[in-house]
C-alpha cells in the first residue's frame, strides 16, 4: 500500500513537471562571461561526481560530499588551470548534503544521520563513523536532510524535508533540528517543506533555501528562527516531541496571503527573500556568503546561491527591518553545465559549484559537473544592493551611474505582487500594483540612488526594472532586474 502511494505520487509529480516548460535563460551569458568566466574543473574519466556539498580543508584541499555517498579530497582544484587529483576519503554514505571539517574530523549530514567521520590511522581514508544523531524518522526517499556547516558553537543545523509535499509521516519531517557536538538533538522550528541549502546569511544568522510548492508560492530564503514556523503546517504533529517549544501554532488558513496570516499565526516567519518563480530559478539550492575580501569582485558579504533546475547562480542580500528579516535577490551568472546543489568559495576567492542533473528537469546538459566561477578582474555594471527606506529604496550600483538618466524617476519601473498562501502547489503572482517612483536622488559618488516611491506595498515582492539606467560610460546594466521582498517598511 505504502509502495503504491509512492508510485502514484511520483507519477503525479512527473506529470506536473512534464507539462511546464523550463524557464528561459536570462540571455545574459555572453555579457556575464566578460566578468565571471566558467572554469571547468575536470573530473576523472568515469567518475560520476554528483556533488552535494563542499568544504575547504585547513591544508587547502577541496572536500566534496556526493549524492552517491562519497567524500573526495581534491588537490589542485583551485589552480588557475586545474588538473585536480581526486582521492576517495570515504564511501558508502547516504547522500552527503552537508560537509564541515573541524579539529581533524568531518561533520557530515547524510539522509540517515549526522555523523562525525575521522581517519584514526592517518592513512588518508576514513575508518571511524560515529553517529551523532539519527533522531529523525526516515521512511521515504524524498525525506532529504540538508545540513549546515558547523556554527560557532560547533552545532550542525539540519533542515528535514517533508515525507512528500503534503505529509509528515515520521518524527521531525518538516522541522529544523540542531545537532550538538556531543550528539544532542534540539528542535529549532517547524513548517519546512522541501529545503535544499542551509547556512548563515551575511549577518551570521542561520537561513535555509525553500522550494516552491504547497504553502510556498515561489522559492525563498527563510530565516530559521528558533520557535518559529516556516509556513507549511503539516509538521505540527511533532510539537509533542518538542515540549520546550510549547504547543503547536494556530493552523494558517489556505487561499490566504502570508501578510494576512502572519497576523493570525504569531510564529509564522515571513519569507525573507522570495525568488520569483522562473525569473529567479525554479529550485534554489546551496548558498554561501562571499567572505573573500573582494577577491570575487564587488559583491563582498553577499549571499551567492545556485539553482538546480535552471543551472544558474544568483545573489541575495538581507537586512533586518522592524525586527523582521527581508531582502532582495539579483541574477548573477547563467549557463552552468548541470543542476547546481552546492557552492563553495575557495581560498583564492573563486566560487566552486557542482551538482547533478538527475531526477528532476535541469537546464544544464551534463549529468554532473564541477565548475568554478572566476572573477576576471573587470567590474560588471550591476545593481549591487537594494535596501528598504521608509519612503522607498536605496539602490547601490557597482559603478558610477550616468547622473542625468539616473536622476530621472522614469528611468525606474517598479511592479509589486505577492503569492497566494495556500495548500495547493505553488502560486501565480497575484495582487499586482504599480508604484510610482517620484524622485531619484543620485549620491555625490554616483554609486547610490535613493528612490522615493509612492505606493510601497507591505508583504509584496517589489520587482525592479532598471533597463534604462546607464553607467557613466553609457553602458546598460548586465542584469537590469532585481526583486525586493518588502515584509516590513522601515519606521521613520
Amino acid at each position, binding site marked *: 500500500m505504502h509502495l503504491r502511494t509512492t508510485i502514484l505520487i511520483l507519477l503525479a509529480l512527473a506529470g506536473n513537471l512534464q507539462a511546464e516548460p523550463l524557464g528561459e535563460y536570462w540571455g545574459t551569458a555572453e555579457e556575464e562571461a566578460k566578468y565571471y568566466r566558467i572554469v571547468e574543473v575536470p573530473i576523472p574519466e568515469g567518475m560520476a561526481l554528483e556533488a552535494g556539498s563542499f568544504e575547504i580543508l585547513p591544508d587547502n584541499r577541496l572536500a566534496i560530499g556526493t549524492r552517491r*555517498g562519497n567524500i573526495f579530497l581534491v588537490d589542485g582544484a583551485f589552480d588557475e588551470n586545474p588538473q585536480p587529483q581526486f582521492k576517495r576519503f570515504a564511501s558508502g554514505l547516504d547522500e552527503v548534503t552537508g560537509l564541515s571539517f573541524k579539529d581533524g574530523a568531518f561533520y557530515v549530514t547524510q539522509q*540517515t544521520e549526522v555523523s562525525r567521520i575521522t581517519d584514526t590511522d592517518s592513512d588518508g581514508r576514513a575508518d571511524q563513523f560515529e553517529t551523532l544523531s539519527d533522531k529523525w524518522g526516515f521512511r521515504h526517499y524524498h*525525506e532529504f536532510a540538508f545540513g549546515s556547516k558547523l556554527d560557532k558553537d560547533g552545532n550542525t543545523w539540519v533542515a528535514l524535508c517533508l515525507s512528500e509535499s503534503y505529509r509528515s509521516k515520521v518524527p521531525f519531517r518538516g522541522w529544523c533540528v540542531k545537532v550538538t557536538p556531543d550528539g544532542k538533538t534540539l528542535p529549532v522550528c517547524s513548517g519546512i517543506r522541501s529545503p535544499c541549502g542551509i547556512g548563515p546569511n551575511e549577518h551570521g544568522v542561520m537561513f535555509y533555501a525553500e522550494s516552491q510548492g504547497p504553502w510556498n508560492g515561489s522559492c525563498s530564503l527563510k530565516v530559521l528562527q528558533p520557535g518559529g514556523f516556516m509556513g507549511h503546517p503539516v509538521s505540527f504533529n511533532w510539537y509533542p516531541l518538542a515540549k520546550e517549544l510549547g504547543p503547536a501554532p494556530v493552523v494558517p488558513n489556505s487561499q490566504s496571503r502570508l501578510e494576512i496570516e502572519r497576523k493570525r499565526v504569531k510564529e509564522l516567519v515571513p519569507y525573507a527573500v522570495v525568488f520569483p518563480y522562473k525569473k529567479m530559478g525554479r529550485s534554489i539550492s546551496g548558498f554561501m556568503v562571499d567572505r573573500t575580501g573582494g577577491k570575487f569582485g564587488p559583491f563582498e558579504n553577499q549571499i551567492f546561491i545556485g539553482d538546480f533546475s535552471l543551472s544558474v547562480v544568483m545573489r541575495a542580500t538581507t537586512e533586518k527591518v522592524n525586527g523582521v528579516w527581508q531582502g532582495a535577490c539579483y541574477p548573477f551568472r547563467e549557463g552552468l553545465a548541470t543542476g547546481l546543489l552546492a557552492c563553495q568559495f575557495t581560498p583564492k576567492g573563486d566560487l566552486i559549484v557542482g551538482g547533478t542533473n538527475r531526477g528532476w528537469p535541469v537546464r544544464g*546538459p551534463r549529468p554532473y559537473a564541477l565548475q568554478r566561477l572566476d572573477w576576471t578582474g573587470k567590474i560588471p555594471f550591476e545593481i549591487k544592493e537594494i535596501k528598504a527606506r521608509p519612503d522607498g529604496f536605496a539602490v547601490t550600483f557597482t559603478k558610477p551611474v550616468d547622473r542625468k538618466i539616473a536622476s530621472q524617476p522614469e528611468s525606474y519601473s517598479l511592479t509589486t505582487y505577492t503569492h497566494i498562501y495556500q495548500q495547493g502547489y505553488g502560486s501565480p503572482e497575484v495582487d499586482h500594483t504599480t508604484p510610482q517612483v517620484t524622485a531619484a536622488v543620485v549620491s555625490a559618488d554616483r554609486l547610490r540612488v535613493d528612490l522615493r516611491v509612492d505606493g510601497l506595498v507591505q508583504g509584496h515582492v517589489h520587482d525592479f526594472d532598471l533597463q534604462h539606467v546607464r553607467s557613466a560610460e553609457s553602458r546598460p546594466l548586465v542584469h537590469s532586474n532585481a526583486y525586493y521582498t518588502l515584509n516590513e517598511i522601515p519606521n521613520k
Partner: protein
Amino acid sequence: MKNGMKQVIRATLVLGCLIVAGNSALAQTLSEKLKSESTESLVVAARERGSAVRGAVLFPLQKIGCVNCHAPGNDRLLGPDLTKLGKSVTDTHLVESLLHPSKVIRKGFETVTVVTNVGQTVSGRIIEDSPNQLVLRETSDKRELVTISKSDIDQVVQNKTSSMPANLVDQLKDRGQFLDLVRYLTEISSTGTGQVKRKHSQGGGVISEALQGLVLLKEFNCSACHQDDTNTGSLTAKGAPRISWSTGRIDPRHIEQFLASPHSVKPGTTMPHLMSSHSEVDRKRIATELTHYVVSLSDRSFVRHKLDAQAAKRGRELFHTVGCVACHSPRGDDGAELRPDTSVRLGRIEQKYNVDGLAELLENPHGVRPSGRMPNMQLTHWEAIDIANYLLSRKLPDQVTRTTDDRFKLNASLAKKGETHFKQLGCVQCHGVNDADRKPRSIPLADVRLDKGCLSTEAGAWPQFGMNTKQRHLIRTALTDLPVKLDAQQQISTTLTAFRCLNCHQRDELGGVSAGRNPHFQTTNPNLGPQGRIPPTLTGVGAKLNPTWMRQVLVSGRSIRPYLKTRMPQYGAENVAHLVDLFQQVDQLPEIEFAKFKDQKEIRKVGAEMAGTGGLNCIVCHTFQLKQAANMPAVDLTEMAERLQKKWFYHYMRDPQSLSLNTVMPSFWPGGRAMRKDILDGDTNTQVEALWQYLLDGRQARTPRGLIREPLELLATDEAVMLRRSYPGIGKRGIGVGYPNQVNLAFDAEQMRLAMIWKGKFADPGGVWRSQGHGRVRPLGTGLIQFAPGPDLGDADSPWTVDEGRPPQHRFKGYSLDEKRRPKFNYQFADISVEDYSVDTVDSSNRPFIRRTLTLRPDGSNRQDVVFRAATGKTITLEGNGVFLVDSSLRIRVDENRKASIVDHTSGKELRIPLQIQDKPSTLILEYRW
C-alpha cells in the same frame, strides 16, 4: 499504435524461429541461403514481414555500406539514387539486384576501366564525358572523383560486372534484416521522381573579384591610412596585433629581423615593409631601435623554455585534427609545411615565440589580435601548451642554439629613438593605441590611383605590402567595380571568405573542404559517413537554425556535434555576430502548412512513442540526453527544438537530403507518404508535428521506449564495499556490505538486525543512484536469505518489536572499519553497548561463509533476561555440533554452550539464544553457511 506493437511482436517471433533455423545450417552464408530461395518467396516475405522503418535504420549503417554509393539527390555516385528508380522497378527486381547485382546493370551505372598512355588503369563509373576529359567515380574503396584528360587515354574498356559487391547482403545479420531492407527500398524506389529536383552545388567556388578585392582591402587594413568611403557592409578590418603583448613573448631578435624584412621572414604577412626606400644599414639600425622600443613597453623579459617532447607529440595530433590545418598547412615529420601555397603560413614560428607566449596566443588569440582572423580554437590551457610545444619544437638546420647569456639587453636611448620611428614611419597607424597618435589620413580610397604608391611595384616612401600581381588586380577591381551597397548575400559571402569559414563549410556554390585537406577532417565515429567528419553546410543555414542558437554557436562556442574532431572556432562577437541577422534575412524555405492538433499532451505522447523503439526508433542513431545511441552518435534529440526552426524540421523530415546532401538520415515519409500508416492515421504532417511537439519538451522530454542504460554494479575488490541506502525488506536505513570473499550482507541500522545475506556479486545501486533515487539497492549474486523484521536483541519478557517501526530501546552509534574496510557496527540496546562484526571467511573446501561476532558490554547492571534471535523459519532443526538448519538452506552454527533453543513462532519456528550478561564483555559467535 496498437497494431504497430503487434507487428513488432510477430516479427520478433518470426525472427526467433529463424535463429533456430539458422543454427542448423551454420556453414551457409546469408547470401547463399537467400539465393537458394525463390525470388518470389522472398518478395512475398518482404511484403508480409519486412518493416520499412527497420530497413530505413539499416540503410545508413556503414558496415552495410548502402550510403557509400546511393544517396537521394546525388547522381554523381557509383550507384543510382534509389528514390528515383521509377515505377518500372518492382520489388522482384530489387531482390534480384541485391542478390545478383551484375545480372542487370542499370543503364548509366556500368563501369569502365580506363588504360592511360603510361599504362595506368582506373576503374569507375563515367560521371562526365566531355570532348577533353573523362570524370570517373572510382570503384576503389576511396570512391573519389578522378579526372583524366582524353589525350592521356589509351583505351576505355567496358566492364561486365556491377560495382556493387556480389555478397553485400552478408553484412546483414539475418533474413529478417534482408526483408526489412527490401521493404524499405520498395517504399522509397519511386518517391524521388516528380519532386522538385534538388539543387546541390559541388562547392569550391569563390566570391567575385571585386569582393575578393574588398576582403584584401580589409586584410591590409587600408582604411588605417586611407579614408574609406566604400560601402563595405559589416566586414571588420584586420587590425594590427597589440605590440605591447609581444614583450617577453616574442624573441626580440625575431622582431628585429621581421621589421627589417617582413616579407622574407614571414611570407604572406599583411604587415607592410615601411623601410623599402631606406639603405640596408639604416634599415637594420631602425629595426634595432624599434625593437628596443617594443621591448621597453613592458618589463617582461624574453626567456626560452625547455620544450616537452611528450607535449609536442600530443600537440602534433591536436594541430592536425582540431582544425588548425583548415587554414595553416599540414606539416611533415620534419615540421615542413606540406601545402604552403594554399595556407596561411606560420613563417619561422619556432624562432618567434616562447612556449608561454605562443600558448597564450593560442588560448586567447583575440586578446592579442582582436580582429579575429586567427580564431579561438576552444583549446584548453593544456592543449594550447601542447600545440605550442609542437610548433616550437621544429629545429631548422641553420638555427643556432641560443644560451641564456645571449639575452637581449634593453637600451633606453635606443628605445627612445625607436619610439620616434614608430610614429614617423607610420607604424602607429595600425599599432597605435589612441586615434590621436595617428597621422592625418592619406587620400580617400576612392581617389587612389590604381598604379601608384602601394599598388605600384615600385619602391618608395609608401608601405610595401608585398602583394602579388593577382592581389593588386583584385584590389584594383574592388576599387573600380565594387557595388555602391553590398546586399545581404554579398555581405555574408565576404565575411565567410575573410574569416575563412569557407575552408570548412560550403555555402551554395562557395567553398567547402578542399580535396587536399579533406583527410584532416576526422571523426570519432565512422558510422556517420562524411557528415560525421565534414563540418555542416551553411547553405540555407539561416532557415535552419534559431537565431539565438546560431549566435551561441558563433559567439559563445556552443556545439552539438561531438563526433567532429574539428572544432568550431570562435571569431569574436564584433567580427561575426552580424552574420546571424544576415543569414536569417537571406535564407528562406517554401511555406509549409503545419498540422493542427487538439491536445498537446496527447500528441506529445505519440511523439515520444515515435522516437522510441516501437515507433521510428530515432534513438537507435540519435543521442538522447547525452546518452549515446547504439548505431551512431547523431545529434542529441533533446536539443533539436531549441536549435531548429520548425519549418526547416518539416522539410527535413520529408526529405533530409534535399537540405543536407551528406546526411545519412533516412526519410520515414518518402515522397511525403508515411511509412508507419498505423500511427496517427498515417498522416505525414501530423506525425511530423507529433515528433516536433515531443522534441519541444527539450531536456524534459520523456525518455523514449527502448533507451538502454548501462548497468551499474558495485563490487567488492580486495576490500569490502559498503552502501547505506534502502534495501529490499529494510526501511531507508539499510547498510549493505560486500566482502572480498563473495559473501554479502545488509544490516538494518533502524532496527539493529542482520537483515539479509547473499553470495556472489554485491549490488546494483541503480534504484537509488538513478532518477530521484526512489528505488532500492538490488542485491546481485545468488542465494539471498532475508531475516524477519524486528531487532536481533530483545528482552525475554516484553514483546518483541516486529513491525517496520523503530524499536524504542535501540540506538545506532555508527561503525568503524577494520584493515579490510569491513565494518564493526555499534549500537546501544537499553544500557548494553553492542558491537556487531561480521567477517568473510572460507572453509577447508574453499566455500565462503560469514563469521559474525557480537560483543556485548553492559553499562553497570547485570542482565539475565536478554535474548538474541538468530533466525526465524518455517522449519528449524538441530543438526548437531551447534549447527541449526533453517528452512533447508541456511546453516547457523552457534557455540554449543550457548543453549540455543528452537521455539514456536507465529509463522513457524524461531532460533533463540538466551544471554546472561555479567559485568564484563560477553561474546557471541555465529557462523552462517548457505
